[in-house]
């Protein structure tokens, strides 16, 4: 386990030193300003609209950071050839995959926590309500969803040589699932065969990332998600993450790496 944490530590250090996090902080500052402007209008609908936009920005920026950071991990190691002195040590390729995943996931988690912290402070100071449990649930669910996305991107980065291909394909896949995931089985019913069967099969076999979107719970004060549902969603994310990591390991373990 120490080896995995050591690998994750290097990922986080790299991210920190490449100044990717600074971009996030600038974005956070902009979000804060947007949220702070809410009370200028004294209109509940506008306040909710602005909160919705803020949360959407958090979603998009967290997804961008997760996908872009993860996509370059293994290809960058191969391109810079740092993979060779690393794999010449007693570390398995499976540990490298898990270490990279953990580093990216933890780094994204820190970014998310900062975002939600700013969001909670500003909205709380303006509206004088502190639905911390709702925020924590929303944060955790988003982070769990990002675990699936990061594992999926790692898998992509094993098979696609260029990080840009991985980023594009994964971003389209994630946006597609988030946008169409809920409605896909309904769309399927309106299609002729064999499209109906294909779309239904896709609906039941794809990871349902849209289930992790609790923005409406935060914006419209809908209260908490039931705890059993919350636990099941966490388990579902763990299973999908495990599947993607397993596939990534299977692809990486037999790959010829020539100096």
């Amino acid at each position: 386990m120490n080896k995995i944490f050591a690998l994750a530590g290097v990922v986080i250090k790299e991210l920190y030193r490449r100044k990717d996090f600074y971009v996030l902080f600038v974005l956070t500052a902009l979000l804060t300003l947007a949220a702070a402007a809410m009370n200028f209008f004294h209109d509940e609908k506008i306040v909710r609209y602005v909160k919705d936009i803020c949360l959407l920005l958090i979603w998009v920026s967290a997804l961008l950071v997760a996908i872009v950071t993860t996509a370059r991990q293994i290809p960058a190691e191969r391109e810079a050839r740092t993979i060779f002195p690393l794999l010449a040590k007693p570390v398995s390729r499976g540990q490298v995959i898990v270490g990279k995943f953990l580093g990216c996931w933890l780094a994204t988690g820190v970014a998310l926590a900062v975002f939600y912290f700013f969001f909670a402070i500003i909205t709380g100071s303006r509206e004088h309500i502190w639905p911390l449990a709702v925020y924590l649930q929303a944060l955790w669910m988003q982070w769990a969803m990002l675990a699936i996305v990061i594992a999926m991107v790692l898998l992509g980065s094993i098979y696609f040589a260029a990080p840009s291909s991985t980023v594009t394909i994964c971003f389209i896949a994630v946006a597609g699932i988030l946008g169409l995931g809920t409605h896909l089985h309904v769309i399927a019913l309106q299609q002729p065969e064999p499209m109906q069967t294909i779309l239904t099969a896709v609906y039941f076999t794809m990871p349902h990332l849209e289930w992790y979107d609790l923005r409406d719970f935060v914006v419209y004060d809908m209260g908490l998600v039931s705890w059993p549902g919350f636990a099941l969603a966490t388990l579902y994310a763990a299973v999908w993450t495990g599947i993607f990591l397993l596939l990534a390991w299977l692809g990486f373990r037999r790959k010829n790496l020539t100096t």
Partner: protein
Amino acid sequence: MSSAILQTEKLRVEYRSRELRQPVKVALCGLDLEVRAGEIFGFLGPNGAGKTTMMNVLLGFVPPTSGAARLFGIDVRQPIARQRIGYLPELTYYYKFLTAEELLRFYAKIFGLARAEADKRIEQLLKLVELEAAAKRPIKSYSKGMQQRIGIAQSLINNPDLLILDEPTSGLDPLGRMKVREIIQRLKHEGKTVFFSSHELGEVETICDRVAIIHQGELKAVGTVADISTGHENLEKAFLRIVGFQSTTP
């Protein structure tokens, strides 16, 4: 006789092209080799002979197509086989955003060294490669020579029993070469085993206990420099004769 630290048996490596109708390239063909504990072993061959492939197999980067390769009696495909080895690549491939101290600490963690042991080892190695003053600077700010030295330090972080060096003196200035030679000699005195590939035949002749010559994926000769050379020829002449080089100049 000393025990074998590094061993290959009928080792064969083939590279298959992704393109159809491209012939399979045989990089290593039935290689039988043994490196014994405590010796300095030079692995020689012209460009494209299969030296790098051999290194890649020993370090687990490329799996053998058939045959076996073992380090300390353990199959090279097992990560634990690399617990007691140090590897110095030909060029510097390190995380440039880390400082020398961070890089060494990272590798120490990978080897499972305890914190106190790692601290002591890092201090010793930084002193050995004369990088104490630059220990807290990112590697990207280092000169080429300094990067080579941090490479040497990382290869010794686990106090390895076997050191695998891929053309360790290539691209180094005379001072850097001397430093590498000194380190190899010091390791020999400590009873360590060194396996290295090189094109510097004069250097190999001076420091190696035994050498192997590989050509077109096949082992052509193995033994002491005296065994390989005939009459009064030096290693360079013996090497050229073994690989079938015909000089066109009188």
